[in-house]
């Protein structure tokens, strides 16, 4: 299944790198793909994967390096130009117009026209049919795209790229939202494209698929490609190990010294039974105890955040229910969840968590306005006391309640967010990726705080893709893969290799 060694390179990127100010998002990297090769591209969030893709597809202009397609130097920096030169990208979000037909979408922006300036639908039809026959992608040209299933829409996007004579197609998380049989179908299409010497870069976190459909794989970490080679030369655990780094060994040692409290005080605070949301996650069940920290880990795309938002009431829940204090319930809104003792520190603190133009104090009181007001009127003194309490307890810098939050460092912003929820004293506190983009010092402070509230009897649920973090702080570890909860282990007894393997979906 391997493309010929040393054959003509379809794509050759030499030393492409990208800097944003003083931040190097992508270190000067060489990346090459051969015609007919399916290259997997994997890496955690922040590994530089998306930067590399954006550079290669024209969304970013690289600060260094050049890109050659079929040995011709390419014009960079504009997706449309890259497309015209033969590199296409099928993004996660649709670049189709749902109200138009498949035919019109394939030729989007460049539909063939007749002498009178009208669209030449006959020529469109002919060209489309020959494409469909050549690449064996079955789709009805006159169908309205909005009515097609997701996998058919992906196929339309592929046809669109092929119609533009794309020689290299990037597929960014192509199987998100697809069912098992639809994934098979997509893979068959990819195999067909291979025989036509189209090069494919398959970007995915679903390692199963990477191992099944790719000829080779490039693993990224910390802004560079750290391993590249034939898929036959690597196995799943090794791949995951490389992806998440060797820091794990050190973390495991440190973690061994910590006191673990799996199942905490033995009192169940939250019970989840067979939670499901159509096409997203299935049959998720677990218990959360007072006085413990349960970490749900897995690769990006395991749909952990979706589970939590469904519990919280900010996203739909199709099946199952949760039980809190003996009541079976489904929260219909965050307001309801909060009044039942639930708290959620969201993953994206800028988009979902903070009021950037407001002060630390305003942010801290947002959930507990009733506590700092009487009959709707704000009690300044109470607010000052609350702000002081959290700023001290979390060591927020600057210790100025009027400081505008957008000016704080990432670590301090996260502390404000956590402080806001700690004030609400929820019986269940959920934190979604609590230390992403935070400096080491702040991380340590946050871990200490979380352990402290756990010791005081709080039930804590943490979603984390950072295995080092998970090994450091959890009492129990739950592993989700592709929308299913696969296993829960006691942290102390956890076997590192086993966890890696399970995360990878073995």
């Amino acid at each position, binding site marked *: 299944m391997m493309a010929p060694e040393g054959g003509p390179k379809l794509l050759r990127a030499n030393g492409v790198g990208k800097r944003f100010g003083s931040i190097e998002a992508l270190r000067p990297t060489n990346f090459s793909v051969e015609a007919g090769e399916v290259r997997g591209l994997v890496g955690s969030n922040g590994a530089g994967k998306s930067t590399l893709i954006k550079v290669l597809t024209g969304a970013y202009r690289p600060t260094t390096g050049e890109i050659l397609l079929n040995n011709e130097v390419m014009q960079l920096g504009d997706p449309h130009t890259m*497309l015209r030169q033969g590199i296409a990208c099928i993004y996660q979000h649709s*670049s189709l117009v749902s109200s138009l037909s498949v035919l019109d979408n394939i030729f989007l922006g460049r539909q063939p026209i007749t002498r009178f300036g009208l669209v030449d639908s006959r020529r469109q039809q002919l060209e489309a049919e020959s494409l469909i026959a050549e690449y064996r992608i079955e789709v009805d040209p006159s169908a309205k795209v909005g009515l097609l299933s*997701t996998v058919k829409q992906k196929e339309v996007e592929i046809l669109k790229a092929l119609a533009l004579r794309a020689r290299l197609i990037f597929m960014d998380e192509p199987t998100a939202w697809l069912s098992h049989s639809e994934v098979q179908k997509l893979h068959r299409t990819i195999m067909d494209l291979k025989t036509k010497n189209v090069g494919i870069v398959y970007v995915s976190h679903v390692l199963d698929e990477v191992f099944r459909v790719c000829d080779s794989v490039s693993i990224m970490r910390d802004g560079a490609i750290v391993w590249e080679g034939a898929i036959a030369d690597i196995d799943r655990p090794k791949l995951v190990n490389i992806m998440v780094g060797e820091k794990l060994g050190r973390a495991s040692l440190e973690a061994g010294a910590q006191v673990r409290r799996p199942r905490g005080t033995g009192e169940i605070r939250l019970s989840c039974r067979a939670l499901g949301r159509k096409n997203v996650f299935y049959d998720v069940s677990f218990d959360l105890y007072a006085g413990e920290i349960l970490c749900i880990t897995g690769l990006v795309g395991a749909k952990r955040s979706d589970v939590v938002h469904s519990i919280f009431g900010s996203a739909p829940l199709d099946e199952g229910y949760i039980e809190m204090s003996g009541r079976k319930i489904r929260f219909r809104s965050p307001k309801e969840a909060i009044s039942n003792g639930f708290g959620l520190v969201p993953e994206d603190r800028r988009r979902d968590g903070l009021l950037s133009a407001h002060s630390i104090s305003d942010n801290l009181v947002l959930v507990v306005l009733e506590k700092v007001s009487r009959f709707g009127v704000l009690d300044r003194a109470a607010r000052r006391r609350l702000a002081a309490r959290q700023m001290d307890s979390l060591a927020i810098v600057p210790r100025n309640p009027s400081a505008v939050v957008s000016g704080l460092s990432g670590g301090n912003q996260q502390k404000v967010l956590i402080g806001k929820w700690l004030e609400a004293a929820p019986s269940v506190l959920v934190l979604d990726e609590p230390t992403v983009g935070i400096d080491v010092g702040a991380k340590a402070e946050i871990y200490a705080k979380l352990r402290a509230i756990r010791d005081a009897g709080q039930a804590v649920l943490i979603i984390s893709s950072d295995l080092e973090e998970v090994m450091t702080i959890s009492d129990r570890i739950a592993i989700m893969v592709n929308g299913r909860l696969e296993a829960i282990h006691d942290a102390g007894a956890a076997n590192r290799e086993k966890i890696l393997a399970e995360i990878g979906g073995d």
Partner: protein
Amino acid sequence: MLRRFPGFALLCLFVVLFALFSVFSRRFLSAANIEDILSGYSFMAILAIGQAFPIIARGVDLSVGSNVGLGAMVLFDLNMIFGLPGYAAIPMAIAVCALAGTLNGLLVTLLKLQPFVATLATLAAYRGGVYAISGRQLYPELATQSIRDPWIRSLDAYVDVGRWIGLARLVKLPSLPLSFIVLVVVAFAAQTVLSRTRFGLDLKTVGGNPEAAHLAGISVNRVQVAAYTLSGLCAGLVAVVLVARFTTATEATGTGMELPTIAAAVIGGASLQGGVGNALGPILGAFLLGITLVGLTLIGVSQFTQQILTGLILLGAVWYDRATWDRQQAAAARNG
């Protein structure tokens, strides 16, 4: 659940209402009444078609009424003050309206103003312009005179279809006002543009998925400017038609037209979410409004109640549009 469904439902609603009014008022089905409806609402239909363009591009044009007033006053001034003959004044008036539309487009694309804000501002500005250039105020004696230009007056003609077809002896068919003929031409042209030209597809792309449009190399700005220019162009045509009918233009010409045109366009299937729409739906929407209001008048419902009903109809249309959109989104998510 095809989008064509609302069109079909619309047609059915139209037929039902028509039948209902015919039953409740004998005058309704008469040739004279049909002529009234046609001459009274053909121009509204033209405006609704024009409004469809910005709406498909995910915008809106609130300035159409003022634009019509502007064009009407320009025509009046050119003819009555400067003495330009109809065949010169008419194209110039239409051009002014089209340019006014272009200005709307530029405000939206260059200054990045939200469409409703930009066209709200020009709604004011253009109305101010009408007052500023008002020939009736500059030369008060003109206020009582009517336009006598043969070119313009001929536009108020009625085409006696009955005589042409030869059925006049059997049944009294309504004569078609020229505004209706203009409507038919505009509808044909607009429908061709929207469904058979690259520009029409680009317009739907820009409104339906601006990111995709950008990636496909479509100049989003140019498409938007064109959409507003077309809306202005239709306003210009309507201005001419109205001046012909009333043989004059007043400072108030066109006031209040924005609401019915938006209602007609939305009822006709131009979704406010963008990307969807055709030329025939707005026509149905406009005449739906038309027969409703005329029918109500014949039954004896007051003008003021009709104003209320127009607002309620717009609310209903917008609610239905939103509900359909939500339903489609939910279905797409489930569809996987």
